[in-house]
């Protein structure tokens, strides 16, 4: 790409300049933003010529003129009802709300047994040296592409969550990202969150994305989790962007000794979505479960790229991603598992299974295992299939109509992922989403 800013990223440049003119950030952060924006200006957004973006063409994002949102936007009035609808019941006293990527303390609730946790916007958190260290560490991670660079340049202001040593959250904590049209523009939002789970802490996070339908918009999110020794974090990402939404998100996780991380990424919405998830196991005895379910239709496109990096001995990873595609939908799954030199006794399993409900749906799946240690137990596999005629016939032969039979079998396919979800309201939401795909009335009873 060229050095010159094209007219399309002028709005990004304008936003960057506006952000730079604010003086209340430390010098290192200002420099970091500068470097990041330069990187973006130089490399642009990724193209299909890059291996990592081979099957996901983001030209539409490039072409659409999005307006970056970098400050509290009065125009984005939030209806309490919309907010309530986007809130998971279990997290109603522990939700942190972002509107168009900007953290809104005024809409957030923090109580219900989570009052010990630290929740500060980056600007405030940076005044405490201890927190500043964590934030700087996460921001200075290498930026793997133009989206990451753009997020680092334009996030505003970012939320820092710290679970103190031994903290046990009694209710799940929701990071609620809501896109609302502002001034008739097409907002581009750059949410950024750092979660630091100190040693022995236990918590469940729900990261959710929803939007009011209407205009196109872009979500470019970045969530970092630093999970210290023996901490246990369960993480649900529920992506239900509107049909006009573009969703690009990255999750970066670092695991401490004997820590435990379980994530389930649900992708249902968006015109185009991309999720990069990286789990770095730099200490012995860590365990992670990285699961996902994507269910798309029409002309939706979803792409998951994961990297599970076993860098030390005695770590365990499990990955199960399932995909359901209808219409002309297209999905990409690329899962890398690295077992580094010396990471003996690694136990890694990776599976990606896809169910195609139409002839025109398409999946590109590529599980990749790279092993540089010799005493390990690793398996991986991928499958793409359709509903079996014999299975459908079996249900129909019991008097069940064909549409319902298809939904039941589709549900059966997804259930392996759904049953591991421990938040009732998320599970119910998925039950409905899967079973009502063909507008049938079947309900799974608890």
């Amino acid at each position, binding site marked *: 790409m060229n050095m010159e800013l094209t007219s399309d990223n002028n709005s990004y440049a304008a936003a960057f300049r506006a952000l730079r003119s604010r003086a209340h950030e430390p010098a290192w952060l200002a420099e970091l933003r500068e470097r990041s924006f330069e990187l973006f200006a130089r490399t642009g957004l990724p193209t299909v010529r890059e291996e990592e973006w081979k099957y996901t063409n983001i030209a539409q994002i490039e072409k659409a003129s999005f307006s970056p949102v970098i400050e509290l936007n009065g125009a984005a009035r939030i209806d309490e009802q919309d907010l309530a609808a986007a809130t998971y019941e279990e997290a109603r006293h522990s939700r942190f709300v972002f509107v168009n990527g900007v953290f809104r303390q005024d809409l957030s609730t923090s109580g219900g047994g989570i009052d010990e946790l630290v929740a500060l916007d980056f600007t405030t958190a940076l005044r405490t040296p201890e927190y500043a260290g964590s934030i700087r560490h996460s921001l200075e991670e290498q930026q793997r592409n133009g989206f990451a660079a753009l997020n680092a340049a334009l996030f505003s202001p970012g939320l820092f969550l710290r679970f103190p040593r031994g903290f046990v959250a009694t209710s799940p904590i929701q990071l609620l990202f809501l896109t609302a049209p502002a001034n008739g523009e097409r907002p581009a939002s750059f949410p950024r969150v750092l979660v630091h789970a100190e040693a022995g802490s236990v918590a469940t996070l729900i990261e959710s994305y929803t939007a009011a339908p209407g205009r196109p918009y872009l979500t470019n999110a970045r969530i970092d989790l630093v999970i210290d020794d023996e901490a246990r974090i369960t993480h649900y990402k529920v992506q239900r962007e509107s049909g006009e939404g573009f969703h690009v998100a990255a999750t970066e996780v670092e695991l401490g000794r004997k820590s435990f991380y379980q994530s389930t990424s649900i992708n249902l919405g968006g015109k185009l979505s991309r999720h990069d998830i990286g789990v770095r196991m730099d200490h012995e005895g860590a365990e992670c479960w990285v699961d996902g379910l994507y269910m798309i239709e029409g002309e939706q496109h979803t792409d998951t790229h994961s990297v599970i990096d076993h860098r030390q001995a005695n770590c365990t990873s499990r990955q199960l991603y399932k995909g359901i595609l209808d219409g002309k939908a297209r999905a990409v799954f690329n899962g890398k598992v690295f077992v580094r030199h010396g990471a003996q006794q690694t136990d890694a399993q990776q599976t990606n299974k896809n169910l195609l409900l139409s002839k025109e749906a398409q999946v590109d799946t590529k599980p990749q295992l790279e092993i540089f240690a010799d005493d390990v137990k690793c398996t991986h596999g991928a499958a793409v299939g359709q509903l*079996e*005629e*014999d*299975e459908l*016939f*079996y*249900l*129909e*032969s*019991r*008097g*069940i*109509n*064909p549409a*319902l*039979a298809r939904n*039941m*079998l589709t*549900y*059966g*396919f*997804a*259930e*392996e992922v*759904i*049953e591991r979800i421990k938040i009732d309201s998320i599970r119910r939401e998925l039950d409905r989403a899967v079973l009502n795909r063909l507008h049938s009335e*079947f309900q*799974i*009873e608890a």
Partner: protein
Amino acid sequence: MNEMLEIRNLHAAIDGKEILRGINLKVNKGEVHAIMGPNGSGKSTLAKVLAGHPAYEVTAGEVIYDGKNLLEMSPDERAREGVFMAFQYPVEVPGVSNAQFLRLAYNEKQKHLGQEELDPLEFKDLLKEKAALVEMDASFMARSVNEGFSGGEKKRNEILQMAVLDPKLSVLDETDSGLDIDALRIVAEGVNKLHDKDKAVIVVTHYQRLLNYIVPDFVHVLSAGRIVKEGGKELALELEEKGYDWLKNVKSEPPAIAGGQVVRA
């Protein structure tokens, strides 16, 4: 009217290959018919065609069930109208409990017949009673349909479905395959308890063994897609003794049914 099913000159093919080549069969209410024959003779195909399996194409003939054209009905309509096939290889349906599945199927039928649907609690009572018929433990009701069931448990579950759906015409496709003697007895007793003068059963089997328990009124022997021999229950014993090889020399004897009734051999 006493007649339950009439099959006239039925021809059916799969992937362009003709399997059934002119089946004629009449089944009256209250009767038990056995369809026997060597592997590949078309007996399972006949069962599947009656249930409406989409892989089979009916190329000629007709099937009248309870005065209606069976072949015009979709598989789910047939089921709601009272046709039931017990599968040789029942399918696992993960994520849907046996109880949910059975209630759904039961209510679909009730709805169709304009009869009362049951809520989960009411249905539980019905299910308990039916499960006792096939000696199935309550723990099976909460489990996903057939998932992780042994071969025998799957077959018993088929008969449980039959008990719940209370079909007029039951077709048991090789229900005895893979069953040990105890399971065979349980399954057969279940079928016998469900049978009455207004219902009919067609038992498709390779072996005579099951017919010791479910005693047929008529036995039809299939070979190469045609009924080549018919008789009473003694015919099954004869087959057990002689095997199927001798059939090769028996000429097909259509139409074996004269005046609508098979004369006992």
